[in-house]
């Protein structure tokens, strides 16, 4: 279980903002925590998946995609802010993510 510091949050936020600015071809200044990924910047679930892969590599995470999928069913992500929070939970709990439900 990794410790999430302010630095981790800053790093994750930076990666997420840059990723969506690049993928969705929008100005990074137009992205904020409340930005709706699908409605506002034309994002999609494949982008979410790609971000997961980026963080898996970056933080050497041990987590199965379906674990994230099961968690997402109960905690759907719509905004950039929610996505960052979920990525932080994934980094913190990895394959034990579903234990948060218990």
């Amino acid at each position, binding site marked *: 279980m990794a410790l999430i510091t302010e630095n981790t949050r800053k790093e994750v936020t930076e990666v997420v903002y840059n990723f969506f600015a690049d993928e969705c071809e929008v100005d990074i200044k137009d992205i904020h925590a409340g930005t709706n990924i699908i409605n506002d910047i034309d994002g*999609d679930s494949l982008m979410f*998946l790609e971000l997961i892969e980026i963080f898996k590599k970056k933080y050497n995470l041990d987590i*199965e995609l*379906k674990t994230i*999928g099961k968690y997402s069913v109960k905690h759907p992500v719509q905004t950039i802010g929610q996505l960052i929070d979920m990525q932080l939970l994934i980094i913190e709990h990895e394959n034990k993510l579903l234990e948060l439900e218990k």
Partner: protein
Amino acid sequence: MSQKKLAFIFPPFASDYPDDPFVNLTGFDDCFRKYLSRAAEFADPDLIQFEIRSNTFLNDELKTQYISYIQACSLVLWFRQKGVVPAYCSGYSMGIYAALFQAEVISFLDGLVLIRQAFKEIKKVINNQGFGMCTIIGLNLDDLEQLILKEKLNLKLAIQNSVCSYSISGTADDILKMTESSQKEGALNTRILNVSVPYHSVFLKDTVTGFTEFVNQMQFRSPKMPIVSLIDQEILLDEQALKNEAVRNLFTPLNWYETQLYLQELGVSRFVECGSGKGIVKNARFIEGDGVFFTANAYTALLDTK
């Protein structure tokens, strides 16, 4: 040491038109209108009414296949006029007919004939039974096979798009059940496709006799460039192999993931999705290697900067 090469990939028929897909392509509309007009005269007079903003025929599978083929052939012509010719081409799903056109194996009108006949044979075989397809992202092959087995679903894996993205064919009821079960199992995304045909699966096996007979009486020419098979990643170099591919394409599972990897092994470093969508470009994020995938618009913008 491999050389840098270009491949044209012809996508399956469109499911929507979110943006103007050919906005950077000056003169493309002339190519498109020319082919649209010929197709309307030859295959279906309604086609002439196609408008990307208002009259897309997306609820008509055959017309949509015609339109996607016409768009792809128009891109072939447009790129040819700019002197852009790929080293390889490949047709994803029903994009096979445009790949045959790109390689000058068939004429534009013969492609329309093949689409019409394949659709006729398919309709004969499925005989108004409810079929469909879905795409599931986030589960691996084992997960999907176990789900199908556990739930006793009448489904077959039709296309592998990446290690975690698959298209599945089967009865419409079971397709719906599969999407629900996959979500519970942890799929990150499921989507029921807007088709009534279980493409690339054994459900269409009975098209083989009629379609083989039809294809064999058509004249195929030797390809002017190698076409890579999505079925077994073979390079198709002669007429008979291409005829067999056209027939097998209807009822045999495809592997787009392996095909892309193989093209990269052959030295392909740039892929252009020759259609109106971005599905292949988006899917490419999950393919290993350094290959770069472009829409026709994006590739044209790149050419224009040189």
